[in-house]
């Protein structure tokens, strides 16, 4: 479904992503782990069009998508969350998640070239029945998505996102990604800053999404979660892929242990998973 060939991105003298090859089959969940600064997030940026590679190619469902704009890739069904959390602070939870459904709006986004935007403006102002019905339908859908997070978000549906806790902002981001009805979902550290209970909830949700057949690329530091969820694990260090395989294989790979220990950034992999 997704295939990366020799993907490379350099910042000045630093090669943040170095000739990465990666294949992801439909319905697969692949995790990317590695010490901080290994290039994981840069890799996500390259796949989602927020950054352009210096070399290499990205294919999605057989089509070359290298260097396409993020808008186009969202329309292709690629959704992502962000490492530091990028919700729209002044928008309500409902509006944040509705933005996720933006590429699916039909009634208000006529497909005519050039005059399309003007028609969109006209339809937004006039709001005929079809537009209202679509908006209503999407609102119901958003509520159903929010219900997947139990009582975490539903009671706060009209609150502005800036007033949410850190963990709830991460949940809003995931809800927003789900509203896009993605074919490929990229999750960048979905459990960062969450306590063990919250992490367990998030892990259950990701497992659910996988069971529903969603294709997922996951960046995560909590190794226990990675081991339980992943079909395969890819280890990155200094931009390179240093190991790939099933969870346990990778865990005992000497190169991986060295990457974590040798950099002395966060101690052993086990300690990091506990952190």
């Amino acid at each position: 479904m997704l295939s990366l060939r020799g993907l490379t991105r350099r910042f000045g003298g630093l090669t943040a992503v170095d000739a990465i090859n990666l294949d992801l089959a439909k319905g697969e969940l692949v995790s990317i782990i590695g010490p901080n600064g290994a290039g994981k997030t840069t890799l996500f940026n390259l796949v989602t069009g927020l950054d352009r590679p210096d070399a290499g190619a990205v294919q999605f469902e057989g089509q070359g998508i290298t260097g396409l704009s993020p808008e186009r890739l969202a329309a292709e069904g690629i959704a992502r969350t962000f490492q530091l959390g990028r919700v729209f602070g002044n928008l309500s939870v409902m509006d944040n998640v509705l933005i996720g459904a933006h590429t699916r709006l039909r009634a208000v986004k006529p497909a005519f070239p050039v005059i399309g935007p003007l028609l969109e403006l006209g339809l937004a102002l006039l709001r005929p029945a079809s537009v209202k019905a679509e908006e209503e339908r999407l609102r119901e859908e958003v509520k159903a998505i929010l219900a997947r997070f139990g009582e975490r978000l539903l009671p706060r549906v009209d609150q502005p996102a800036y007033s949410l806790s850190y963990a709830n902002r991460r949940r809003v981001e995931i809800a927003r990604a789900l509203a896009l009805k993605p074919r490929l979902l990229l999750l960048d550290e979905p459990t960062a800053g969450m306590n063990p209970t919250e992490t367990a909830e998030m892990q259950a949700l990701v497992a659910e999404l996988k069971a529903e057949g969603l294709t997922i690329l996951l960046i995560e530091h909590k190794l226990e979660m990675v081991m339980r969820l992943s079909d395969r694990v890819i280890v990155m260090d200094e931009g390179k892929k240093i190991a790939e395989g099933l969870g346990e294989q990778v865990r005992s790979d000497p190169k991986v242990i060295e990457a974590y220990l040798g950099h002395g950034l966060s101690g052993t992999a086990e300690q990091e998973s506990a952190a």
Partner: protein
Amino acid sequence: MSSWLDYTINGLIVGNVYALVAVGLALIFGVSRLINFAQGSIYLVGAYIGWVAVVQLHTPLPLTIIVVAAAAALVGLIIERFGLRPLQNSVRIAPLLATIGISFVLDQLVMLTFSPNPRALPSQLPDVRFQVGGGTIGPLDLLIAGVGITSALLLFVFLRYSKLGWAVRAASQDRDAAMQMGVDVNRVNQAVFGIAAALGGVSGMLVGMYYNQIDTAMSLQATLKGVVAEVVGGAGNVPGAVVGSLLLGLVESYGVAVFGTSYRNLFAFLLLVVVLVLRPNGLFASARQAPPEPLTGTFIAPSRPVRIPRWALAVAAAIFAILPLFPVSFYVLQTLINAWLLGMLALSLTLVAGTIGQVSLGHAALLAIGAYTSALLSLTFAVPVGLAIIGGGLMSAALGTTLISPSFRLRGHYVSIATLAIGEIVSLVILNWESVTRGPIGISGIPPLSLFGYDLISPTSIYWFSLSVMVVLALLQGRLLTSHLGRSFRAIRDDDIAARAYGLSLNRYKSLAFIFGGFAAGISGGIAAHLYSYINHETFNTQQSILALTVVILGGLGNVVGAILGSVALVGLPEMFRIAAEYRILIYGIVLLLLVRFRPQGLLGTI
């Protein structure tokens, strides 16, 4: 050929003066990521302090330079300490608005102290010319070049070899890391503002001497030129600013040589727009850089808007609608008509600056486009006034959006610079395109307002007309905000990267915002043209842009009701207290500063 040498020398000398302003801007940008819109005001202050020293105190030249540098540095320190330091932990839009407010306050203070009339600033140097090749240079040219080169060298030595200079460079590379290493960032900011202000002040004095004339209009021009030079060289890049300044000086000088003096500024702003479009990081920026990492929703102040029930709004509208039926004076009606016209402009700006986060400083240009279009349609083509005004709105929407579209990929402060420049370009084109706009003479004899063949001449009918147009525009905008477009605009404002990742095209939605906003502003300009019956290139000026911005901040960014409330307050209150016109802009500037400091979300809150 000799004249070309003259133009080259002249360009380099003027460029040298710009460099003194631009280097200051670059230093400040490097350390605090802030484009200091008050830099031109310090330049103005420097010129007038120079005038006091030379004409009244008869100081010798070296002493004059020292006095001007010291006094300007003091002004810079005051701005840093009281204007900007309190905003350090505030939202990103706050320091931008603060420097705009400070600039207006300083300009007005100078104008009130010295009167707006131009003054002569003699150069104190012997009036001789030396032959150089085919051209000539005078002692003042040499002095300007000398001051430019000397200050560049001093600055280089300071940044390179002094401890504080190291701290400045460290802070400009990574502010947080510098703080953690024990660099006192406040002291660095002080040093930078002091140096920038001293350079700016001396530059203002030298330019005054060069042209033997100073006046209060110098300030905005200097800010614009300095910013152009800085952006051309790459924001925050000190050597780049020097090169950018010389390039700007040469481009202007050659432009004047070919096309004439009135085209000087046009070339400067075209250079800016070209650089912003082709190389937004400046001519000397290294290859494309990693996208900056903005924090969530920190551009505008988060707030919960005050919810006003619909019935209360309906009652307020009804009271204003029946007001002329009561015995109120024409003066009150006239004041409120002005408020409604400003209200339409504020609606436009609150959508553009508030809802989608593009802080436009050239919004008066949209008024001008609407006014000229409507005036010319009704005069030249005998289009009925009502239709002509709508034509003005449409033209403003189409032309305004087209002109601004190159800046759609810019963010934050750069948008403000681009809109300021585009506003100036519009005004210069109006001045120079005589065959269409009648140039400096302006357009007179514009027919009065009329609707379906009935002239609207009485204040009451004009009042009702402008009120109802504004209410219709406000209702439309309110409807827009509750649609998916309102949501999309606000998402782009809060985080354009996340918005793009969810399929929102910045070009498409920024265009739509400017089309809608341009229409409202164009309608306001169109009505104004028929009310005034005479307009010229100065009728719609930067002061109106700033007034509209103050209204928008006062009411709450993006807040439709707030924009109208702000207009009534800022037009009505000065009238009520009979404040003389020259003090009003001072008051607007102070209001802007106080709001940014104490209530950045405005009266009714950001939407």
